[in-house]
């Protein structure tokens, strides 16, 4: 029974329907697996009692013939989603004791669909980072090579999927935070169109960029999860009022006549690892063999996407984090002597170094006299990048790139140069500022056995293409199995 965690989503769903095993047994298998892989530190808060309650409820529903689309499926939730009555920390000391009295819209929908909550997964503090190395809750290991990073900021969800301690996972993608860890951990990660999934109840990092997104072992799984997550929410004024289509409708359709765009500038300038260049080439070949045409396209402003992103994201983050002041909830420093003292000590003790760095950058770019030069300009550059993508999508159906410039790198090298770290996002960030959608699909392994991901980019509201084209990559690629049998390195 403990091997139940190895079943795919299809197999698990079928097994539950056929009553080959119960939801409780399936969930217990995952709870055991969470224990066995504890050293990977994928989870901040395990919720075994809640998980078993959810599973029992699912068993009842299945028995009544009222199973939802995700009934009984064990799920890891990034600890940036507020889950009612369950500790939600955003991996920050400043929220070390925060128990939300409300449920985020996306988690509510997903639980309504029948998913089972296994626990709150680790992340970079306040979703800021690409390594999941928060000071407060510790680094998450990559199950493929535990000396390496799982990526970030949704490293916990990705790691849990890769080590078999979750079957589905919820992450958030602001500059690549779902796609990059998915690529590093050999799983699928999707950044839907901005506004596709509600941000209500998601701890805010950069309001105009944050996008809740699904992670899963397989492309179709991620489509099913997105189906449950998506939809207009009147409580979120940036929520899309577009109807939610059937995301899987295009899967398996022919590639004949389809056009795959390759951005010239990235090809030339992105300074990619040779192994990533090979991967990219193999990806192009694979689509050509399937009948699609490769077209070189131009995204001239993409050079500016990274600085544009960091200016906008840091400004919005600095603003969104003003509320953490020790007055209403969360950490309040002790031995305080005045109001100013409380602010300084609480925020000084409560925030980790990367968060402080981004608050400082954000405050600077918004400051009087600098607004136009930085924030104002970044907004205009953002429009240009969006314009670039609109032009490109008049020529091609999807754009193909590697997800990351390198495979997962050692945890030790993470904190050396923070600005150099930002380079990790060079291929994912244009998608966020460009207001388009994207998926990362496992497409190969490095010599060292680390997984590599290819990224597909589609126009806004065309997530169906991500799954359609992503499925082709998946079915044309032989990946080694996920590292379920590799032992976790003891701490």
């Amino acid at each position, binding site marked *: 029974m403990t091997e139940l965690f190895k079943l795919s989503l299809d197999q698990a769903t079928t097994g539950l329907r056929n009553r080959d095993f119960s939801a409780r047994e399936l969930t217990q298998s995952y709870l055991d697996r969470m224990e066995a892989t504890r050293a990977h530190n994928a989870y901040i808060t395990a919720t075994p009692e809640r998980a078993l309650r959810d599973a029992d409820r699912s068993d009842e529903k299945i028995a009544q013939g009222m199973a939802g689309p995700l009934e009984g499926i064990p799920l890891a939730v990034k600890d940036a989603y507020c889950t009612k009555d369950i500790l939600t920390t955003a991996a920050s000391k400043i929220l070390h004791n925060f128990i939300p009295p409300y449920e985020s819209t996306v988690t509510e929908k997903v639980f309504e669909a029948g998913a089972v909550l296994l626990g709150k997964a680790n992340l970079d503090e306040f979703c800021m980072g690409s390594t999941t190395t928060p000071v407060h809750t510790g680094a998450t290991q990559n199950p493929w090579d535990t000396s390496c990073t799982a990526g970030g900021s949704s490293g916990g969800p990705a790691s849990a999927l890769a080590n078999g301690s979750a079957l589905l996972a919820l992450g958030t993608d602001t500059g690549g935070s779902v796609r990059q860890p998915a690529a590093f951990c050999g799983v699928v990660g999707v950044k839907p169109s901005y506004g596709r999934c509600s941000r209500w109840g998601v701890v805010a990092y950069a309001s105009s960029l944050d996008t809740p997104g699904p992670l899963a072992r397989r492309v179709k799984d991620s489509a099913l999860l997105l189906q449950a997550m998506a939809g207009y929410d*009147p409580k979120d004024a940036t929520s899309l009022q577009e109807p939610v289509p059937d995301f899987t409708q295009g899967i398996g359709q022919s590639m004949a006549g389809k056009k795959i765009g390759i951005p010239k500038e990235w090809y030339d300038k992105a300074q990619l690892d040779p192994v990533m260049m090979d991967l990219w080439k193999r990806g192009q070949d694979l689509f050509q063999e399937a009948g699609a045409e490769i077209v070189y396209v131009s995204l001239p402003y993409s050079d500016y996407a990274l600085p544009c992103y960091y200016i906008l994201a840091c400004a919005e983050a600095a603003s969104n984090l003003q*509320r953490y002041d020790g*007055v209403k909830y969360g950490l309040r420093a002790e031995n305080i002597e005045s*109001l100013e003292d409380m602010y300084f000590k609480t925020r000084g003790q409560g925030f980790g170094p990367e968060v402080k760095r981004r608050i400082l950058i954000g405050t600077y770019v918004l*400051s009087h006299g600098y607004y136009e030069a930085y924030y104002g300009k970044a907004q205009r550059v953002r429009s240009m990048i969006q314009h670039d993508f609109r032009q490109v999508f008049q020529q091609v159906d999807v754009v193909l790139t590697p997800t990351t410039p390198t495979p997962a790198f050692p945890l030790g090298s993470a904190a050396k140069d923070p600005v150099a770290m930002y380079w990790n996002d060079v291929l994912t960030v244009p998608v966020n500022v460009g207001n388009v959608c994207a998926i990362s699909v496992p497409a190969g392994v490095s010599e060292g056995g680390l997984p590599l991901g290819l990224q597909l980019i589609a126009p806004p509201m065309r997530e169906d293409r991500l799954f359609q084209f992503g499925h082709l990559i998946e079915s044309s690629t032989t990946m080694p199995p996920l590292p379920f049998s590799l032992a976790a390195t003891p701490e």
Partner: protein
Amino acid sequence: MPMTIDVSPSCNAFETVIGLEIHAQIVSESKLFSGAPSQVFGRDPNSCVSFLDMAMPGMLPTLNQACVDQAIRLGLAISGTIGLVSIMDRKHYFYPDNPAGYQISQYQSPVVQDGVLQIQGKDKAWKTVRIQRIHIEQDAGKSMHDQDPKKSYVDFNRAGVGLMEIVSHPDLSSPEEVIDYVKRLRCLMRYLGVCHGDMEKGQLRVDANVSVRRPGGALGTRVELKNMNSLRFLQSALYYEIDRQIGEISQGGVIAQETRSYDIASGKTRPMRVKEIDYDYFYFPDPDLRPLVVTEAHVRTLAEALPETPWAKHKRFVQVYGLSEYDADLLIEDMEVAGYFEQVVASLSDPVWSKLAANWILGEYFATLNRTHESFSVTRIKAEHLAQLVAAVADKKVSNLMAKEVFGVMFETGQDPEGIIQQRGLSQVSDQEQVQAWICSVLDREGENVAAYLSGKDKLFAFFVGQVMKESKGKANPQFIQELLAESLRGLKEKAESVEKSLA
């Protein structure tokens, strides 16, 4: 004779320049961005607070369009330009009663710009005050520092309530003008139903920017005055501050640019705790909200449904009902009273009696309310009933004195005047015969006094009038008494004279 030059600080040597920033709480069911109720005065602390009002993680604002409409309506009423696209900006600062660490406000593109308000200055001269802008923003919570020696408390009820910030150009030049401006603006807002304007409940807050200068000279340094929560305190604070500034400058001193608050006990303004003057608020458009777009059609719909303004009503009262400016001023102050007056007039068969109706409302009715410390309510005395009373007085069916008694009963019981008059037999008697009978009865009884009157004691006339009134138990029409009594006494005089003649 040596010439004396007056060097005392006198208002004639200086001009006062005042601009006002008024924060008006928007009348709406819920707050500007959250669904919590917005009428929070007197409620238990932290009982009208949503998760958004506490700025909890992940919470998002959604704009309450009704609040925007209120600001647009006020903008239309002051002939302002309505911004069809306006942006909500975040204004950042740290303070415990500002839960998100930023206030959602409007910086560069407010919903209304360039309006005007006509006020009456000195000598009732009309003056145009230009209103620079009206924007909408969130109110902050309330900090309480006086509950405990070592702790401060915060009540978030008020956090997130919608405010209109109304900024005037510095066109006001005296405390009187300021008071008139505030009163008229408040009256307008009450008419429109956009703000209740009770300063003591914090529904209307006035901050004044005050400076003085020599005529023709450069603008002086501005001082901001805050925390004056009544018109009386506002006026006192302005007087004090103007005097202070003039005094300071006359002695060669310099005015510091600062914020001062009014201290009720001393009647003086004092500098508030120092806060940076050019504080950087890091304004930027709120990324959680889309730009606020209103269509011309929507604005037109709002415009068409606007009620009559107080001044249009005033004009009508003077021109159509022939009321004096003064009476019209008083009647229009409260929209309910004005409406009531019109209903009373509508029930009168002769519109000529409108002035009488006005007198009854402004006189007896208001005086009664004052005495009983009650506030005006249209249901207390039905408009038709008051109209009946007015008609009865105009028709001389009751004397003024009797009418007041009737009014008192109407006020107490809500009964109709006809009923009361009949029940108590208060009809004024204008029956000549009856009055004459009373007069004769009195004159017969008062033989000695009549003789005294006839020999020259004219003052006894009033005495006789009183006696007739008494005899009639107050019912006789006094005018009749006067006329008939005068005739009767004349008759008696002639008789007496002719008797004398015949005896002579």
